[in-house]
């Protein structure tokens, strides 16, 4: 009411309040700290909003145009921001004001910044009216395309395709001419950029121009002296092939692509192999049959391992997409012989790539062919000297299982699994453990019990913790698969047997297993079989075992029935809570507090969650001079006040002090909604 009466002063006062944060942001655009500059740039829209469209155009943008000295991350953020700045400069009518700063960003040396600037330019090009596009945007593209430095020319390559569809035919002709020039630029950098944008540009061109303009450019780039340019032309070739009608492909694209598949440089051939499925889709079934099949055969037999690896990775996808009528014949007569050779390749990466896809062929070829032709290959790979190859076969067993059932393989599978399970490298062992539940599911419970069960148990006493941990988790997944009864008969006795092991690490593994198994095994097994063992271990001479007993009891508590909790668990925990070892005591108390809903405790006032969260506790902690963590502190307190009665007294005193301070603060603040954190801050 008062303020409205004095409009002049109000406006000033309000202006100050809202101007200040903006003023800080503007000043921080030039702060020495990169992080602050970055923050400011990220809030550029706030600044622009405060300045208004007029000042944004006349002051902020000119300033930003020259701010190209900054760190990459700041420039990157700036380039991104400017892409969505149209509204802030006054809408599409003024969008061309954004061109100068983006133009200068498009010439910096850092590729990520340039790419982002080009992306933003592409974005705002759509907000130009057709007239503005020709008056402002196209001249910018031309400037960049004829710039002195190759950074600007590379940026130009990405901008042709966005303006081409929306300009007059004379400008279109100019744009095509500029693109042609860039394709034969002196620097390989620019030719690479042109080569990588060729497909994109071809998509927006009229079909006649694709034939008359793009094809010659494509042919030229695909036979460039630099392999780095030629290899990018492969991808362009794929895009162009999708644009052309089938009857033109043979004359216009295929000679060049054939040449690329046989290029002298392995990097170009690699690219062909890598893009093979896209290529296959683009050229259609007829050319695939006549041209791509032999080309693919050659790539699979290439002298360079990198190329064979890339091709091997495509075997399944390539075969899948073959025309259905001749698929099987092509695979059997052309592809499979090459695959057979790759199985015994000299390079492990080739074999490993093949192993990751070869199983997929079985679904394509059907049962009989798989048994006759593929199975021998699987078996060879299962015996490969490199673990990665064997693992890749094992991890894809499900494909074969669907077709021929895993039984066919089981004879060879077993030695392979055993060998991997005992591999000297623990990462290999870890990998095979992870496939165990899958294998168990496919091989069935009998086979598992007979052959693999002992392996799973052996992992429990592995000398690497990560393996023991994975083995524990594996047991849980097995029980999920085979059920509690199976667990009780096969696993549980063995696990519990380890409780008497002389090695404390193995005894602890028992506890970890119980942690994992209790839930899947259910209340009965847990209470009847597991609990007694755990309770017995509470008297273990090693403290690590004892405190893990406490943790274990806490973990299995929810599975147990309340009578067992009361009668068995509670006394043990209480005993552990008075253990000599501090950690045991800590975890015992933790367990007791964790079980609050299940056990009625005599000393709940110290350890119940309620007290931990009380403001009193916070207050106590804020006074505490030591830098101990929350939990450690809890232990210290417990150690310090051995008698709970004492605790209560102390608490009472603290409560009084606290209440006093709280009320004082409340009084001082003169506000009724003061709350605890404020008290803490004042303290």
């Amino acid at each position, binding site marked *: 009411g008062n303020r409205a009466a004095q409009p002049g002063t109000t406006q*000033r006062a309000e*202006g*100050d309040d809202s*101007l*200040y944060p*903006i*003023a*800080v942001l*503007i*000043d921080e*655009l*030039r702060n020495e700290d990169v992080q602050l500059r970055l923050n400011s740039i990220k809030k550029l829209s706030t600044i622009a909003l*405060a*300045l208004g469209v007029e*000042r944004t155009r006349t*002051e*902020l943008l*000119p*300033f930003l145009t*020259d*701010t190209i*000295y900054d760190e990459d991350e700041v420039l990157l953020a700036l380039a991104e921001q400017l892409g969505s700045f149209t509204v802030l400069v006054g809408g599409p009518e003024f969008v061309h004001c954004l061109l100068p700063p983006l133009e200068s960003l498009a*010439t*910096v*040396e850092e*590729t990520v910044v340039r790419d982002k600037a080009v992306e933003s330019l592409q974005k705002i090009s759509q907000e130009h009216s057709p007239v503005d596009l020709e008056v402002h945007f196209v001249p910018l593209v031309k400037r960049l395309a004829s710039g002195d*430095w*190759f*950074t*600007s020319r590379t940026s130009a390559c990405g901008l042709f395709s966005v303006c081409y569809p929306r300009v007059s035919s004379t400008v279109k002709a100019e744009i095509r001419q500029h693109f042609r020039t860039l394709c034969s630029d002196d*620097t*390989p*950098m620019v030719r*690479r950029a042109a080569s990588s944008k060729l497909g994109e540009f071809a998509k927006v061109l009229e079909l006649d121009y694709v034939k008359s303009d793009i094809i010659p450019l494509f042919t030229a780039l695909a036979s460039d*002296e*630099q*392999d*780095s340019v030629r290899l990018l032309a492969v991808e362009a070739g794929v895009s162009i092939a999708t644009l052309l009608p089938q009857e033109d492909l043979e004359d216009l694209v295929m000679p060049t692509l054939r040449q690329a598949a046989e290029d*002298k*440089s*392995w*990097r170009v051939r690699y690219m062909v192999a890598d893009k093979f499925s896209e290529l296959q889709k683009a050229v259609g079934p007829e050319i695939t049959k006549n041209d791509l099949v032999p080309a693919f055969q050659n790539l699979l037999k290439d*002298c*360079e*391992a*990198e190329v064979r690896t890339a091709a091997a990775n495509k075997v399944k996808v390539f075969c899948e997409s073959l025309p259905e009528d001749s698929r099987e014949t092509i695979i059997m007569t052309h592809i499979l012989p090459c695959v057979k050779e790759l199985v015994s390749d000299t390079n492990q990466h080739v074999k490993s790539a093949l192993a990751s896809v070869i199983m997929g062929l079985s679904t394509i070829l059907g049962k009989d062919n798989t048994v006759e032709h593929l199975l021998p290959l699987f078996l060879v790979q299962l015996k490969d000297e490199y673990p990665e190859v064997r693992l890749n076969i094992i991890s894809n067993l499900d494909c074969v299982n669907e077709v021929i059932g895993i039984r066919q393989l089981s004879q060879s599978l077993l030695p392979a699994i055993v060998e991997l399970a005992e591999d000297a490298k623990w990462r290999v062992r870890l990998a095979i453990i992870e496939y165990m539940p899958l294998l168990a599911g496919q091989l069935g419970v009998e086979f598992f019990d007979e052959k693999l069960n002992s392996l799973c148990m052996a992992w429990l006493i592995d000398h690497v913790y990560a393996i023991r941990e994975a083995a524990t988790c594996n047991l849980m997944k097995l029980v999920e698969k085979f059920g509690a009864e199976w667990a009780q008969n096969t696993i549980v006795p063995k696990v519990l047997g380890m409780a008497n092991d002389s090695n404390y690490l193995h005894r602890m593994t028992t506890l970890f297993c119980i942690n994992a198994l209790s839930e899947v095994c259910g209340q009965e097994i847990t209470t009847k079989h597991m609990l007694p063992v755990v309770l017995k271990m509470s008297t273990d001479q090693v403290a690590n075992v004892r405190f893990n007993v406490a943790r274990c009891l806490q973990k299995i508590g929810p599975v147990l029935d309340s009578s067992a909790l009361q009668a068995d668990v509670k006394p043990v925990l209480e005993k552990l809570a008075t253990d000599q070892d501090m950690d045991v005591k800590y975890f015992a108390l933790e367990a007791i507090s964790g079980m609050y809903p299940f056990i009625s405790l005599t000393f709940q006032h110290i350890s119940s969650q309620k007290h931990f969260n009380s403001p009193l506790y916070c207050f106590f902690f804020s006074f505490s001079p030591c830098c101990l963590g929350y939990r450690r502190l809890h232990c210290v307190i417990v150690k310090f006040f051995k008698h709970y009665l004492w605790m209560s007294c102390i608490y009472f005193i603290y409560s009084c002090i606290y209440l006093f301070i709280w009320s004082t603060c409340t009084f001082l603040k003169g506000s009724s909604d003061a709350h605890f954190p404020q008290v803490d801050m004042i303290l």
Partner: protein
Amino acid sequence: MFTRIIRDPASPTEEVSALLCSVAADIISTVEFNSTGELLATGDKGGRVVVFQREQESKNQPHRRGEYNVYSTFQSHEPEFDYLKSLEIEEKINKIRWLPQQNAAYFLLSTNDKTVKLWKISERDKRPEGYNLKDEDGRIRDPATITTLRVPVLQPMDLMVEATPRRVFSNAHTYHINSISVNSDYETFMSTDDLRINLWNLEITNRSFNIVDIKPANMEELTEVITAAEFHPHQCNTFVYSSSKGSIRLCDMRASALCDNHSKFFEEPEDPSNRSFFSEIISSISDVKFSHSGRYLMTRDYLTVKVWDLNMESKPLETYQVHDYLRSKLCSLYENDCIFDKFECVWNGSDSVIMTGSYNNFFRMFDRNTKRDVTLEASRENSKPRAILKPRKVCVGGKRRKDEISVDSLDFSKKIIHTAWHPSENIIAVAATNNLYIFQDKVN
């Protein structure tokens, strides 16, 4: 033929007899012109890079044309300690290579024994002015007095040259890096140590590809090391590396990803009559350079410099004796370790003249067309700025003439290892321990 135009840029007034320890860090360890010759970079043992810029021609000071003045100085590498291997890593700059210019800034790669760094050298001539919360002199303003927002305005200022590290390519070399070379595709470069060559993308620092590895499974079987490597100036797939056994291998990266198998092997059969205890040491190649045309290769070993035609692997096209008079002194050169000095060699802009260094601050030039050669000396005592260099002669047996120097009086501590030739003009840069001499062909 050559006049000296500047000397000892790092400390023009410093006496040669300055403290040894301070001099040690100043010893120039590499010299390199950029692709236009407008800039010249030197690296030293102290990890510093000094960049010189050529003065633009001006009407009032015509004689200053061509003088190189300091443009930027920065500390490229610092001494480090590898705690895992208990190894000290020297800061000495082993090589500098300029990148092709891509915008108004300049870029160079510098390397010490282990780490390659990409530096940007850029100019700044504008400064933003105007704060909201403080005055131009830095006094804080009362926030309450702010009534309008000020956007900073860029104002012209004195030219400032900044060097900023853009990328660090590290952790890829177990042995000492001896060469770096930028590929003609402008996208990759290679770094070479004693046993391996790695290929990097200029934009990716966390991954490099090993393309050559000559490390035997058993290090006792090691018989040779890589001494230098360079990319072909135009063919992006071709590079050469030289070995301590005096051979050069040319590899084609198109053929396979690993270039352990060479496609060409250049080696001159050893002359059995010249065989001695030192043969292997002196045949070790200390530098290899492609000619600008890409047709020839030049290699430097201890006593000679050789030019090879890429199309002839069996023997060099030309062999030039750099200081054959030392052949009789190899024993003492072995004792004072000089025999292990790694002299570099350079081509002139048109590939018709080659230059390489020697002892006693002498350096040699050989004209490939006329077969004439000349010995020149880079020293303060014998040449004043803008004076014309006199050819020097070393007396080989017989009686010594007045202007000749006897082999015994050569100073082996004054050696010219690093030299550079302007890419198009007759301007050369010669590093003699901690002095840099720049000589220019006399214009008139």
